[in-house]
């Protein structure tokens, strides 16, 4: 018997023109790890929500067909009646925490199921050990790091001993190390406890090698599933290692770095010895809209210190950004990346240090008013939607033109270049994640700042949206702007950034060309670099360019 069985399931939300899911037939067996992939907004979350009845019991909408989880039909069982069977972990763990401390949170689901106290005590201890969080037992939930919070969130549903675990992008907000921790915990559950796991993930490369089955949700709402190697041959979302395998014609398709290395012996021999460092160097700068943007220092920061209370977030950082350069800021959750961006922009806290914008001697962004500062250094914050408050995209664009005294239509033209075809009549909230980011980017670019800072722009973007962002960023750099973006996405960095700055505990621990910095680090190396090591190839495109005749 299948653990999760969907028969002819269609979901239509109220007011929607067409169903989000159409005629889904899916059977996931007990102990399987099913990876749900698909473009943003394709209905991955809906498919996961269907499994425990959140769709339609909580979300509203019309569900046709039948969903049976271990013999219980969601038509007659509400989510709360399936709590002992299905554990659900959302994208943002802190949003789902009900109590204050780790231990109470782990016990919460068991309390609702009325388990006796001795059982609860035993299960809490077991779960603390399984997830490696025993030392956090009394810790307040809000003070944990992102990876720790996500593991507590998984633990808090595990204590009810669910037989099915549903995870919606469990690693999207995590740094590579935190993501490893969470994935290690999940695979351990699958292998040791035979828990059935359904996991949706944008960063397919992180989970693909562990998956027993890939479920693909198309943008038309149709769902196909099969073995990972077969599904990846045609999937519209594919990690670099799969792209490399498709290009090189490796069969079976490699899903992990290990497979690809074994298949790629001849590829490594065929690759030229010269490293493609020149490919990642800043290209010659074309004349931008501002004539004074010659090659030179666009922003210079010396001895930046940011303190929040008694915590030192940034501890004396020196940073120079050159015009026409794309720099990536990497580091653990809580390494001080966001604090540095806000301090450098001039709107955030700066305890001590000196920031100058423009060619020497430069101007201090702190001494400017908000409007001038915005025209000097632009910042797109982590929650980009905080900047939007009007009813339509067109209204936001007009407002941006007025704010920066730009000619009417500037913002709209920028938006068209970054994300062609974005509807102007929609409410900004109804845009896809990528389109919303493009809108905020366009709003901030209307002020024409020579320096642009982006705080985790890749969060929640699928491969297509990331490609759009990459093109936009590279075009901006080509116009002579300096771009600094913080991100956890090593693949995006490998394809986009000329330079990588790594922060740890508020200090810069590495700063140099992308190929040197990321290849030397096991956590930050992109998949292609791991496959082609000891060569310094970072992306599939670089490999393709080096071997124009095709793979050996």
């Amino acid at each position, binding site marked *: 018997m299948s653990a999760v069985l969907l028969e002819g399931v269609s979901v239509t939300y109220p007011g929607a023109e067409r169903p989000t899911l159409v005629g889904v037939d899916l059977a996931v067996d007990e102990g399987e790890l099913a990876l749900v992939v698909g473009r943003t907004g394709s209905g991955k979350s809906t498919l996961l929500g269907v499994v425990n009845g*959140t769709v339609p*019991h*909580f979300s509203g909408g019309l569900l046709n067909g039948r969903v049976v989880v271990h013999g219980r039909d969601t038509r007659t069982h*509400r*989510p*709360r*009646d*399936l*709590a*002992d069977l*299905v554990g*659900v972990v959302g994208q943002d763990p802190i*949003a*789902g925490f*009900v*109590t*204050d401390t780790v*231990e*109470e949170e782990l*016990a919460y*689901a*068991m309390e*609702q199921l*009325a388990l*006796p*106290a001795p059982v609860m005590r035993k299960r809490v201890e077991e779960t603390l050990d399984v997830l490696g969080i025993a030392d956090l037992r*009394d810790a*307040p939930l*809000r*003070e*944990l790091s992102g990876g720790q919070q996500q593991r507590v969130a998984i633990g*808090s*549903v595990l204590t*009810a001993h669910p037989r099915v675990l549903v995870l919606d992008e469990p690693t999207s907000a995590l740094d590579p190390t935190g993501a490893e921790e969470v994935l290690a915990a999940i695979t351990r559950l699958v292998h040791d406890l035979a828990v059935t796991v359904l996991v949706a993930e944008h960063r397919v490369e992180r989970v693909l090698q562990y998956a027993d089955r890939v479920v693909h949700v198309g943008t038309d709402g149709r769902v196909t599933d099969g073995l990972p190697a077969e599904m990846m041959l045609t999937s519209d979302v594919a990690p670099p290692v799969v792209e490399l395998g498709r290009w090189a014609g490796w069969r079976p398709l490699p899903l992990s770095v290990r497979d690809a290395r074994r298949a790629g012996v001849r590829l490594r021999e065929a690759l030229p010895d010269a490293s493609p460092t020149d490919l990642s160097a800043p290209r010659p700068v074309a004349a931008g809209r501002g004539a004074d943007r010659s090659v030179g220092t666009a922003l210079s920061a010396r001895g930046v210190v940011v303190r929040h209370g008694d*915590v030192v*977030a940034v501890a004396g950082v020196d940073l120079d950004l050159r015009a026409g350069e794309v720099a990536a800021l990497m580091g653990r*959750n*809580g*390494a001080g990346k*966001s*604090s540095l961006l*806000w301090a450098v922009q001039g*709107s*955030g*806290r700066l305890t001590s240090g000196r920031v100058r914008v423009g060619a020497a001697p430069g101007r201090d962004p702190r001494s400017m008013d*908000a409007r001038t*500062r*915005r025209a000097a250094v*632009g910042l797109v914050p*982590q*929650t980009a*939607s*905080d*900047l939007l408050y009007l009813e339509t995209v067109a209204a936001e664009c007009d407002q941006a033109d007025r*704010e*920066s005294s730009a000619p009417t239509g500037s913002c709209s033209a920028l938006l068209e270049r970054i994300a062609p075809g974005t509807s102007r009549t929609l409410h900004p*909230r109804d845009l896809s994640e990528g389109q919303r980011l493009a809108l905020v980017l366009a709003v*901030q670019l209307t002020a024409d700042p020579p320096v642009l800072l982006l705080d985790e722009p890749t969060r929640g973007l699928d491969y297509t949206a990331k490609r759009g962002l990459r093109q936009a960023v590279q075009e901006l750099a080509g116009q002579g702007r300096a771009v600094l973006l913080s991100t956890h996405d090593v693949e995006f960095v490998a394809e986009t950034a000329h330079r990588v700055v790594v922060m740890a*505990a*508020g200090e810069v621990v590495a700063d140099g060309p992308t190929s040197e910095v990321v290849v030397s680090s096991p956590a930050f190396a992109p998949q292609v670099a791991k496959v082609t090591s000891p060569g310094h190839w970072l992306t599939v495109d670089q490999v393709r360019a080096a071997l124009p005749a095709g793979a050996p």
Partner: protein
Amino acid sequence: MTRVPRSVHPGAWWAWALGLATAASTTTNPLLLGLLLAVACLVVAARRGTSPWARAFRLYLWLGAAIVVVRVVLHVLVGLKLGTVALLPVPALIMPSWAAGIQIGGTVYLEGLVGAVTLALRLAVLVVCIGAANALANPKRLLRAFPAALAEIGTAVVISVTAAPQLAESVQRVIRARRLRGDSATGLRAVRQVALPVLQDTLDRSLLLASAMDSRGYGHRVDQAPSARRTTATLTLGGLLGACLGLYGLLDTTSPVWLGVPVLVLGLVLAVAGLWLGGRAVQRSSYRPDPWALPEWTTAAAGAVTAGCLLVQARLDPVAMTMPIEPLSAPALPLLALLGVLVGALPAVLTPEPPRSPARKAVSRAPTLAKGGAA
């Protein structure tokens, strides 16, 4: 005697605080009120935990101070000035005859001012007592005592308790983001620009929390026979209807007597029975249930003794419990009331210490602060 640090049952703290508040409401004697205030502050300082609620106690102290200040200002502006010792010559506004009861301005006398201050002090002490209960008892733990039958209302209460601190956080975040757009609008326009993203954010978070509670089994019911469900619904609805009718009968003097108290009592009994029946379908258990042991009895008893002593004193010697205003003289210090107030301070030493959360390493704290602060 060494005691294991543990938190005292929130119900005990509320019982104690309500005892203190009852005691405060019986007197205008500034000596006793000052002592009650000191006792509340002492116990809070000695036994509060590290939660954000505990840190909010000073807000209640400020609120108390504000009450006194506002009362004095109101007294000077519109209060009825009585007494003989003139303090401040303020010109009075002569009001027309139809507003003869209102006196605007007028010379401020010491007696009237002292009377106003002592009345305001009583209200301030009441507020501080409630604040002490909030600081000492974690509201989330108190929520566990919520009637199981009212699970949906329980969800709403949990969400509002969780959303309040988050609301402040997102207001800060959005205001900071506004500056990035170079926007310095003030007034109504600014309210709209901040309020819309904040409300959307709060609504999203609330829905996520409600969904998370639901999928983790909150309000999960065991199977009940349809007849039992019908009985529950009938009892609860009928009871509430009865209570409404009874209240109407009680307040409306023209309605027959049987429609008053008897119907009200019957309605309440039916409603409680309905809630109890409905609650039986929702089964919950408690991980580390808050025990009700000696410290809890001590705490609750201390509050009761304080309230009792002052009530008895007020019955025996009502004059000693008030501030003598005409003629103005030093307030008395009645022995029984004094002892009662001092008993109220006993929980500061007789209860176990609250558990201290271990100091977090700087690295693991940084993320929250970086996000909550100027990330």
